[in-house]
């Protein structure tokens, strides 16, 4: 399999070599620069600059930069971006030239919901397979759970992406586990994306500028995960005017301030969000049952900050940071148990953009991210603490280079230093203290280099070829346990600081091709080989604050996936409608699960409970979107199979993964009645999750116990839900700079009791009467209305 992939890769590489663009006999010059939003000075990513006479062009990169090589001559440049007025500029090209463009929001755009920020036919013309971009305005137009606009829940409405559970921000992509999604916030990895056990994502929508997901042939610049990349970019801050925006909802409020420290030179954005359910309930808890619960509470908060400094035409600096915490406090009414449990992420990204010459764009990054929890409790005088820490320190050097018209080359290197500290426990009772010594931190160095070229072979064929080479080295200090034949630990081998323990490496070829069969129709194919060196193994069906990330070790080998994709893309009615059908087949190697007899112990290395196997997933995704007009939205449907095979589970037979969901349908509708009223609706239907239930009961020492059936043999009832929203936009004639709206969202409008989980309930005392067993379904959320007031002042 791998050999055939290498052959295919070399074949495509050869094809690129023998299909050069026509040689130019006249001198060539470069035009380059930035395309920005006039209103706030932010770079527009994916904006198009087209040369009318040559019917060629290019798009801006993630920072709004473009570069285009042309023969000397007279041209007309057409600069466009959906939702903005198109500019046509004549150009007499006789030398290298820098041209920046400021695009104005079109009058039409102000009346409509902007569904996409993509180039309007990007889905047909690009080589991207399985890529979807979401404008933050789209995210805000969809009914929100408890009024909290959530980018991850919007992503779950796309085909191929499935929600991990009721109201949960965790998601599965094309049969991969939640840990196989690389979630980036300004290039920093976010290890735990959920607040409140995953019911809310850590992304404050007011601070988010754009969201994109890659679920097909992952571009070579991304690595370290098997299934998808969710790239969340924070707003850069308004370079023109100061503005204040925010929202007041039922459970949380938000406030964002942004503006120029120095106009068109330096901007800053500060954004915060906090839940106040604890503050609202405190007065009631203070008197309820004599105040027994007055010290209980839960809240979370987020802080985002970003500084954007234009040093010169060639240099820009960015510093962005995120800090978020959940805090849970509980004191038992009996007074003998209390717990304080904070957890959360923090990230810092420093970036330096530099343009070498006119063609080479550099993005140098320093990245720090950390996820930790730290539990402290007192149970009848037993003081106990558990903490865990997942910390990355890394740097990236990424280059965009456009050597010729029709070529966009990306290359770079990434390095990450991982420190993964599993459960660290301390306990004190009177004079007795314990501290675990068997679960010390693990250290790893992850290094990758990549190169990719997105090039237009001819009018019909466009190819993206990429190669990523990755390496992971587990380094000391490290303790290798040695077990006897019965599995009992008999000795250990210690590795010194930075002493290599185990090194894994490999090539990860990526390729995709687009064949344009008509003006608005294309066929795309792609394949990718991806490796993952950091793993999260979880028993749960949702993301939890105490999930542990573990590195590849002597025992835990890197996960690997091989994915093939094939799709047909068709636009209709001048790109008003976008349609696609994509099929995929994915093979997964070195998959990790907990074994059947896993009992979590705080004094044991979690990897001792792992078992290893393989997986496969395949399916088809259908997508139809209406991208313009008063009535917009999309329908996504996925038909999928996801299976796993482990020697030590289900007698080495294939079984349905917990991510297996045969049908997944999402309908998203948005309708703008007029400038004041907007309606939104989403409908979700999904086959039930799989789970494992007991099939037999037995007595042991007079107590009834359960014998489970095969892994994941039972499928829960189907899930479906309708959400509705209505938004009223206020007119503020006395305060023309104030814009505000009131959003009413109804989650689960017909109050469907969807299955959250199912269990076998055994009731009764075997010695006093008959035992009754029944199958119970637990449902979380009935109909949940919420109301949020959003405002924006200035700008």
């Amino acid at each position, binding site marked *: 399999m791998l050999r055939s992939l290498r052959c295919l890769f070399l074949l495509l590489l050869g094809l690129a070599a023998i299909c050069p663009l026509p040689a130019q006999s006249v001198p060539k010059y470069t035009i380059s620069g930035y395309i920005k939003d006039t209103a706030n000075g932010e770079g527009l990513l994916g904006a198009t600059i087209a040369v009318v006479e040559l019917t060629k062009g290019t798009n801006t990169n993630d920072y709004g930069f473009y570069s285009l090589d042309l023969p000397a001559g007279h041209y007309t440049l057409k600069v466009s971006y959906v939702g903005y007025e198109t500019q046509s500029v004549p150009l007499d090209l006789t030398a290298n030239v820098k041209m920046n463009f400021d695009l104005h929001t079109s009058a039409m755009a102000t009346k409509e919901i902007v569904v996409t920020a993509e180039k309007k036919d990007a889905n047909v013309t690009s080589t991207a397979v399985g890529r979807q971009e979401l404008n933050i305005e789209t995210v805000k137009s969809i009914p929100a759970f408890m009024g909290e606009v959530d980018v991850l829940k919007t992503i779950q409405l796309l085909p191929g992406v499935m929600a991990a559970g009721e109201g949960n921000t965790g998601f599965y992509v094309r049969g991969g586990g939640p840990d196989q999604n690389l979630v980036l916030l300004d290039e920093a990895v976010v290890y735990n994306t959920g607040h409140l056990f995953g019911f809310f994502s850590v992304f404050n929508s007011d601070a988010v500028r754009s969201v994109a997901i890659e679920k097909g042939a992952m571009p070579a610049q991304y690595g370290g995960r098997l299934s998808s990349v969710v790239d969340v970019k924070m707003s850069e801050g308004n370079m023109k005017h100061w503005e204040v925006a925010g929202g007041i909802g039922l459970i949380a409020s938000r406030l964002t301030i942004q503006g120029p420290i120095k106009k068109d030179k330096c901007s800053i954005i500060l954004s915060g969000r906090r839940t106040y359910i604890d503050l609202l309930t405190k007065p009631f808890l203070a008197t309820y049952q004599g105040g027994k619960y007055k010290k209980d509470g839960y809240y979370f908060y987020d802080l985002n900050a970003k500084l954007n400094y234009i040093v010169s035409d060639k240099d820009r600096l960015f510093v962005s940071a995120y800090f978020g915490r959940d805090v849970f406090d509980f004191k038992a009414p009996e007074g003998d148990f209390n717990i304080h449990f904070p957890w959360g992420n923090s990230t810092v990204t420093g970036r330096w953009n530099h343009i070498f010459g006119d063609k080479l764009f550099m993005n140098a990054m320093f990245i720090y991210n950390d996820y930790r929890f730290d539990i402290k409790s007192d149970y009848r005088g037993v003081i106990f603490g558990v903490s865990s820490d997942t910390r990355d320190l890394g740097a990236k050097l990424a280059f965009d280079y456009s050597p010729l018209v029709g070529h966009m080359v990306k290359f770079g290197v990434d390095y990450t230093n991982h420190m993964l500290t599993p459960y660290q426990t301390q306990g004190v009772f009177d004079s*007795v203290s314990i501290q675990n010594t068997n679960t010390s931190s693990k250290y790893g160095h992850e290094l990758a280099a990549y190169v990719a070229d997105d090039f237009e072979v001819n009018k019909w064929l466009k190819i993206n070829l990429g190669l990523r080479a990755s390496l992971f080295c587990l380094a000391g200090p490290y303790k290798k346990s040695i077990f006897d034949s019965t599995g009992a630990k008999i000795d250990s081998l210690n590795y010194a600081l930075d002493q290599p323990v185990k090194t894994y490496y490999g090539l990860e070829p990526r390729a995709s091709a687009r064949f344009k069969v008509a003006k608005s129709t294309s066929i795309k194919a792609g394949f990718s080989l991806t490796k993952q060196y950091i793993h999260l193994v979880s028993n749960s069906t949702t993301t939890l604050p105490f999930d542990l990330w573990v590195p590849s070790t002597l025992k835990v080998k890197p996960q690997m996936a091989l994915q093939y994709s094939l799709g047909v893309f068709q636009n209709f009615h001048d790109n008003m409608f976008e349609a696609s059908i994509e099929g995929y087949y994915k093979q997964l190697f070195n998959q990790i699960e907990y074994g059947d007899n896993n009992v979590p112990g705080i004094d044991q290395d979690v990897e001792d409970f792992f078992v290893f196997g393989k997986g496969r997933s395949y399916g088809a995704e259908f997508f139809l979107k209406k991208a313009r007009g008063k009535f917009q939205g999309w329908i996504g449907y996925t038909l999928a199979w996801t299976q796993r095979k482990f020697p030590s589970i289900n007698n080495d037979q294939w079984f349905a993964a917990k991510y297996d969901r045969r049908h997944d349908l999402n309908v998203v509708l948005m309708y703008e009645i007029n400038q004041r009223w907007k309606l939104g609706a989403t409908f979700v239907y999904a086959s039930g999750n799989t789970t494992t239930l007991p099939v037999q009961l037995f007595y042991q020492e007079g107590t009834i116990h359960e014998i489970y059936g095969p892994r994941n043999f039972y499928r829960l009832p189907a899930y479906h839900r309708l959400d509705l929203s209505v938004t009223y936009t206020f007119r503020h004639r006395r305060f023309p700079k104030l814009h505000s709206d009131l959003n009413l969202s109804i989650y689960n409008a017909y109050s469907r009791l969807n299955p959250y989980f199912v269990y076998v309930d055994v009731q009764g005392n*075997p010695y006093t009467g008959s035992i009754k067993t029944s199958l119970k379904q637990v449902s979380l959320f009935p109909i949940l209305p919420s109301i949020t007031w959003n405002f924006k002042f200035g700008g």
Partner: protein
Amino acid sequence: MIRSLRHIYLRLLLAATSAALISSACTKDITGNLPDLGTSTVVDGNIENGKPPVVLLTRSTRVFGDLNINDLGAFFLHGAAMYMTIDGDSTHIPLEEICLRDLTAIPDSLKWTLLYSLGVTVYDSSSVPDVCVYTLPLSELASYYNTGNCPHCGAEQHTYHLNIHVGNKTLTSYTTIPQALGIDGLSIRNAPNNDSLVNVMATITVPPSNGHFIRYWTQRNDEPFYTPYSGSVYDDKLWVGQTLTLPLERGIPGYIVSPDPVTYGYFWKGDTVTLKWANIDSRTYDFFNTLENDGGGSPFSAPLRVKSNISGDSVVGVWAGYAVKYYSIIVPK
């Protein structure tokens, strides 16, 4: 109580979270077809130092069948051929089936022993099923009860092999009764914020080498011995070389799923408390550790399959060796 230290987060926290979710959520009965995968043979056997081996042989039942003590007699497997060997000796020591109905001449204390091993808490001759066990032949039992002489009773630091032939299945197992290490003693400590409840404290000196496993039961006055709600087994990895005094958790009947949080784990002033403290081998520990930690049904944990120490087709259960020491203390009023 000691065990709860190990699981206070990973179990208590998960359980609390699940409970909070369930209590705030809606629960309803649904119908669903669970596959019929037949039944399993269930072995519930033990051998304690100074006592005869006892093996209960039953079968499992499908989930949606009625399962109560009055029907339990129907689950016993009769007519099995069973024997035990000790260490490397090939001598077969037969274990014979004895049912309560056959024990008219046997003292009630043995009946109680048998019933306790099932966890039966209320003796009512009209409702107690016809319990059957496999144990030493009646002649050996009579000698044991009359003279105390019991050459095939359990003894410390010996390994006991069990062989069962039932139906067309052959089941085998072995267990070792380790050295009985015991504890240093019991003491009393008043419960905080409550005048009538106390903690019974055990002072333990853990040997400098690890690899020791413990199971314990408590008895309050004339009640049977019960295991603690939070689990009955633990290992000493975290305590090696230390002398520590920790609260014991009062055992409760296994069918109680929601103990009273106020009195949970405590004893009352005036109680006579007896501790049954047993060293066990790792295989016995693994069985009870997996049996008692199944969080099935919670969305936050996967079902746990019991790690039996019985080999054979479709079998679950344990053949447990106990190195037991007993301790008593009277709690002042």
